[in-house]
């Protein structure tokens, strides 16, 4: 299996396109860095920040009393809890823009990374059919399931690789441009009515992981389409379209229909359970995880079943 993955890795990295992707990603991070740096103003800590937060809390409490929906109330409750925590533990709400702020900003580029991973995933099976090399690949003493599995694992490794580049390069560039923070400011996590402190790096890693979930699901879908239809354009097109619009469409649907919660994209953003409010009322973290697993299993089943049964006539 290791040898198979080595093979796939070699095929990904011996193509110039892969380096173009990595290059674009690095350029994009650098551009974000330059823009943020040039727009940065000198940071002055507001001395009255405690008072400001207290005022904010009174306003929030009034709003909460007036609000009718449960989700809105929860949102206010969370804000108030965090502000209280800040006052109590002397953690100012505004902090100096540091490397970690930058890493959080560049995490938006996960979308771009997702695009590249989808391109690789969509091509990894379909290209073999286009090139005609699938014939020589499948007449080795290795069954098809293993070959397809090695391809999927390679895609996952590539995803980790690209995300690691994004994270490491952002951190490095951020450290150079904005410097390390004077003291480690923890991230305040609100979950189940409790405010807890979390190491900022741990938080960012979790944030990356959670943000990558929809990318991984779409990568898996692209892989499935690639394997079932042997057509990388279809796989890339459909997956990218859904990557960029799936969330919005589902949000629109969820305003009208309750069943929208069964749509893949209602469940890909697990952050909604930690930081916001669920897309459809009544959704829970375990529900979303369960839905994700079902979709994942479905994609994988289709990919492997069709690939195994296929008559190779290309």
């Amino acid at each position: 299996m290791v040898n198979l993955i080595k093979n796939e890795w070699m095929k990904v990295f011996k193509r110039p396109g892969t380096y173009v992707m990595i290059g674009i990603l690095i350029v994009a991070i650098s551009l974000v860095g330059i823009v943020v740096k040039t727009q940065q103003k000198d940071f002055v800590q507001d001395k009255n920040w405690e008072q400001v937060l207290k005022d904010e809390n009174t306003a929030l409490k009034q709003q909460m009393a007036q609000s009718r929906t449960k989700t809105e109330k929860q949102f206010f409750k969370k804000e108030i809890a965090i502000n209280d925590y800040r006052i109590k533990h002397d953690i100012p709400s505004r902090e100096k823009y540091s490397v970690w702020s930058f890493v959080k900003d560049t995490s938006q580029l996960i979308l771009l990374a997702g695009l590249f991973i989808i391109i690789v995933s969509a091509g990894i099976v379909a290209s073999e059919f286009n090139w005609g090399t699938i014939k020589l690949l499948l007449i080795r003493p290795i069954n098809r399931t293993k070959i397809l599995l090695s391809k999927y694992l390679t895609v996952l490794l590539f995803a980790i690789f690209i995300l690691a580049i994004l994270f490491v390069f952002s951190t490095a560039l951020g450290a150079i441009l904005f410097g390390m923070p004077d003291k480690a400011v923890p991230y305040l996590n609100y979950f189940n009515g409790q405010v807890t402190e979390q190491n900022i790096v741990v938080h960012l890693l979790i944030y990356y992981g959670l943000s990558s979930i929809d990318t991984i699901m779409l990568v898996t879908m692209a892989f499935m389409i690639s394997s079932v239809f042997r057509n990388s354009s279809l796989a890339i097109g459909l997956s990218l379209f859904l990557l960029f619009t799936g969330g919005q469409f589902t949000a629109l649907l969820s305003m009208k229909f309750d069943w929208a919660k069964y749509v893949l994209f209602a469940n890909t953003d697990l952050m909604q359970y930690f930081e916001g409010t669920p897309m459809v009322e009544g959704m829970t973290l375990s529900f979303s995880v369960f839905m994700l697993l079902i979709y994942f299993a479905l994609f994988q089943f289709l990919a492997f079943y069709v690939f195994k049964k296929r008559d190779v006539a290309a």
Partner: protein
Amino acid sequence: METIVELKNVTKVIKGRTIIDAISFKVNKGEVFGFLGPNGAGKTTTIRMIVGLMDITSGDITIGGASIKTQFEDAVGHVGAIVENPEMYKFLTGYQNLVHYARMSKGITKEKIAETVELVGLTERINDKVKTYSLGMRQRLGLAQCLLHDPDVLILDEPTNGLDPAGIREIRDYVRQLAREKNMAVIVSSHLLSEMEMMCDRIGIIQNGRLIDVQLVQEFVHGTEVTYELEVVPSDKALKLIEASYPDVRANRSRNGISVELPKEEIPKLVKKLVSEDIQIFAIKEVAKTLEDRFLEVTSEKEAVTRG
């Protein structure tokens, strides 16, 4: 002789159409088996089934005793194949391509790769990208790819397609050499009859998905009767004489004189007769029937029978 590949009543049905209809044959070690048929007869489909690229609807194929259906890995481990064109990864070098395939079989050393490269004569260019290769070089790389794991069976689908005469000859020599020296069984498919004649020991003819005949090449080409071409003057008189003395024999005017189908023993008698009639003889040639003639003959005979 030891059987290495065996097809038993292999049938393939695609969307209700029978593409391959109950084909059975055996291929022995050290033998070059030609698979001959017009385009669309089912050669490539049969080969795809032998190497497991396509499912078998009914029947079974065993390679080295292992069924390709149920013991795929064992069976296909005996096989090295090029199916249609040797498609390699163009963005990799020849060597990387070979490493790629070497990793997929057990126990192929660097030395083995180098040795194979040497055998197909690609040592000079092996570190160039495949996209810079000529068709002949790709064909040779394809051959190297299927020889890496010392297979017992070599399957070449249309190996000479698109090659120039020198390339064709090269492939032919490799094939004969491998069968002879390494005791490999070689299955070659082609619609180029002259090629098959020079390369193969036995030939199976496939038409409309049915195997209509399996014969040794010599028997197949020569059959029982041989055609002789007589260069004689005056030819009219000679033709009349032949028709008179051999009423059952086919004799007709050909480009260079007269052609007759006669058993060999009759030739001296015929010469005597011609000489006694004062007919000048310039040449008598035995004209071996080409595979092409025989092929067309066999296929049309069978067609007549099936229609009849």
